[in-house]
């Protein structure tokens, strides 16, 4: 509690409205700002009880607190958001002035006084509301964009399943060199379309801050050996040498989002391969307990200094890339940069035109939460499924053919149900060890068939797999919450099917 200043008219020079009351709640002073607001002279207000001058103060939300003011001698805060205003004042635009009010108790010359300071926050709140409205609109727009992409993703993934799966089956057939080359061309185009749709989804998530991370513990050695196996194939196909250097403890495990880390390395390596016509691509990995460093170097065309500035921007593919006839919108590096940044890491590029490029990524490593176990390594070997009875419910004929071929290749016997109703009938009448259900089927969806199956005693322990073109993270969450044991997103390859059954043998 401070002493009030006898030069009370100083308060005419502040921007807040001020009322001073005595211990009887009688107004002893109002400043010029307040007089201007209420449109009454100071003479008509001074000497009046504050609740007579402003009857709204007797409202239950104010008065019980207010009347304890001099007993408690503690300051009071009245926020605009809860009360709108302390004194109802119509503004020029006919709106009631929003007010933040602070009441302090002071020792005046003739006893205690209450200093009521009223701030006009109408404009401030209005501006915030406008910002809030635009933020809402942006959010709605982002949601519509995501929903549109989700539909497009689903609608493209289904035919892609037919293209990618069929080409894989075709490559198992005896083909001459020209035919093999053509089929590889179709498969590469399918893979490219799939990458493109995944990149667009990621880019949309980045722009709406919705990119999700699911860290897990895994072996560095296993992870990079898989990356190297895939990279070697790509480099060899272009006649390039693929060199690697792994500088870390082979027993080391790390805790990070595995698929996002793969996305970073895969993008950098495949870019290096794409933009290098002769020579080498080198991958160097260094890790200790605190940091993972990934260096990807190539002997390719290099990037000019001017292009290095915008190389991580979306839709910016370096000139050389375009000249070399490389397809793509240049989304990969932009997404890599976003992922690296969201993982608190850094990415930089050193390059000179004609002398190749070096991309360096550093990512901080953290320890997993206590009790977090290492992810089991999934075997890539083909399992022997002889004697296993598999029910596949799928309405699309091409997808039926692909799944039957892949699963029969592993030795299992497959029964096909062409819609949801047929799937229920099969489940009711037959016995199956594994059930794969497409989600979008006539008569009953895969999730409906699953619910039906779980009402039957025979299917309590049987693994259920959802196969769907709905492959966004939200879709996967939905399927997992519904109870599905495994998800096989379209388009699937033979390798994906092998991994699915190997995962099944680990889990069940």
């Amino acid at each position, binding site marked *: 509690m401070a002493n009030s200043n006898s030069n009370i008219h100083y308060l005419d020079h502040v921007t807040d409205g001020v009322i001073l009351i005595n211990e009887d709640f009688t107004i002893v002073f109002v400043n010029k700002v307040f007089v201007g607001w209420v449109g009454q002279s100071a003479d008509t207000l001074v000497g009046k009880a504050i609740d007579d001058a402003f009857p709204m103060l007797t409202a239950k939300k104010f008065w019980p607190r207010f009347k304890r003011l001099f007993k408690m001698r503690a300051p009071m*805060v009245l926020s605009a958001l809860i009360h709108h205003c302390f004194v109802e004042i119509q503004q020029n635009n006919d709106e009631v002035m929003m007010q933040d009010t602070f009441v302090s108790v002071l020792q005046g010359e003739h006893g205690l006084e209450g200093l009521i300071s009223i701030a006009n926050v109408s404009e401030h709140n209005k501006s915030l509301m406008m910002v809030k409205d635009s933020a809402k609109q942006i959010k709605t727009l982002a949601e519509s964009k995501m929903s549109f992409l989700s539909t497009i993703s689903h609608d493209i993934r289904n035919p892609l399943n037919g293209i990618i799966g069929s080409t894989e089956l075709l490559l198992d057939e005896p083909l001459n060199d020209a035919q093999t080359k053509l089929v590889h061309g179709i498969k590469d185009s399918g893979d490219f379309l799939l990458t493109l749709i995944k990149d667009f989804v990621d880019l949309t998530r980045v722009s709406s801050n919705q990119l999700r991370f699911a860290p897990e513990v895994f072996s560095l050695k296993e992870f990079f050996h898989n990356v190297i196996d895939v990279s070697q194939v790509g480099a060899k196909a272009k006649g390039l040498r693929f060199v690697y250097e792994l500088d870390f403890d082979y027993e080391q495990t790390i805790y990070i989002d595995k698929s996002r880390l793969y996305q970073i390395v895969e993008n950098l390596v495949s870019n290096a391969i794409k933009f290098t016509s002769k020579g080498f691509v080198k991958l160097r990995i260094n890790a200790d307990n605190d940091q993972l460093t990934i260096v990807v170097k190539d002997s390719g065309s290099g990037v000019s200094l001017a292009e290095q500035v915008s190389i991580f921007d979306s839709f910016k593919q370096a000139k050389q890339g375009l000249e070399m006839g490389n397809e793509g919108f240049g989304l990969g590096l932009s997404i890599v940069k976003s992922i690296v940044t969201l993982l608190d890491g850094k990415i930089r590029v050193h390059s000179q035109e004609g002398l190749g490029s070096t991309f360096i990524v550093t990512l901080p490593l953290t320890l997993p939460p206590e009790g977090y176990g290492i992810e089991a390594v999934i075997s890539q070997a083909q399992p022997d499924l002889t004697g296993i009875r598999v029910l596949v419910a799928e309405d699309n004929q091409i997808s039926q053919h692909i799944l039957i071929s892949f699963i029969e290749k592993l030795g299992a016997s497959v029964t096909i149900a062409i819609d949801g109703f047929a799937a229920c009938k099969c489940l009711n009448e037959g016995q199956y060890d594994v059930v794969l259900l497409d989600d979008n089927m006539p008569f009953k969806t895969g999730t409906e068939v699953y619910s039906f199956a779980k009402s039957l005693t025979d299917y309590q322990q049987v693994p259920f797999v959802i196969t769907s073109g709905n492959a966004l993270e939200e879709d996967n969450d939905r399927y997992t919450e519904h109870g599905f044991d495994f998800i096989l997103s379209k388009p699937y390859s033979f390798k994906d099917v092998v991994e699915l059954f190997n995962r099944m043998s680990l889990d069940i």
Partner: protein
Amino acid sequence: MEINEDLKDVITELTNIGVGDAASVLNEMVESHVTLQAPLLVILTPEELEERLQNDIGEDISLVQMNFNGGMTGVANLLFPIESGKKLTNILSEGFEEEDYNSLKAGTLTEVGNIILNSVLASFSNSLSEHLDYQLPEFSDLHVTQFIKNELFQGNDVSFLCEVNFAVQSASIEGHVVLVFDIDSLQAMNGKLPELLM
């Protein structure tokens, strides 16, 4: 200074009375029925307080802080996890949504803090017949570590932490009242124990 069981009991009792009074004021102020419960009071060193807050609230907190002096000197604090602060503002304020901006949240939480901390301190002031001078409450969003580094903990080796559970409109919101008194105030309170325990 060592806090004996009697002093702890008195501080617990006075805090509970204060929180109870605050509930009545909040109920008169807002349309919704507000229940406040303060089930437990613990004495903690700054290090223990930091650990406890990190466990209970997390790293980021919304804080309303009121300094007081006069018959007793110290700082009263009301802390919420940032998300709970938003939730409470959402319930108490028309037009506020959880994703809104701090400057909107700040006003409402400052008022809630003002009501609770006023009532708690008034409970001490009345029972101990000590006159207190208060500064206006201040709101901030900050990291637990920044809160513990605050000068209020310099030289004051104990603080009193009381969990406050808000039940309003079927939502349950956890907050913490942290009281820090200087040594003289604690000694004065200790000296008044015989009359307080009568």
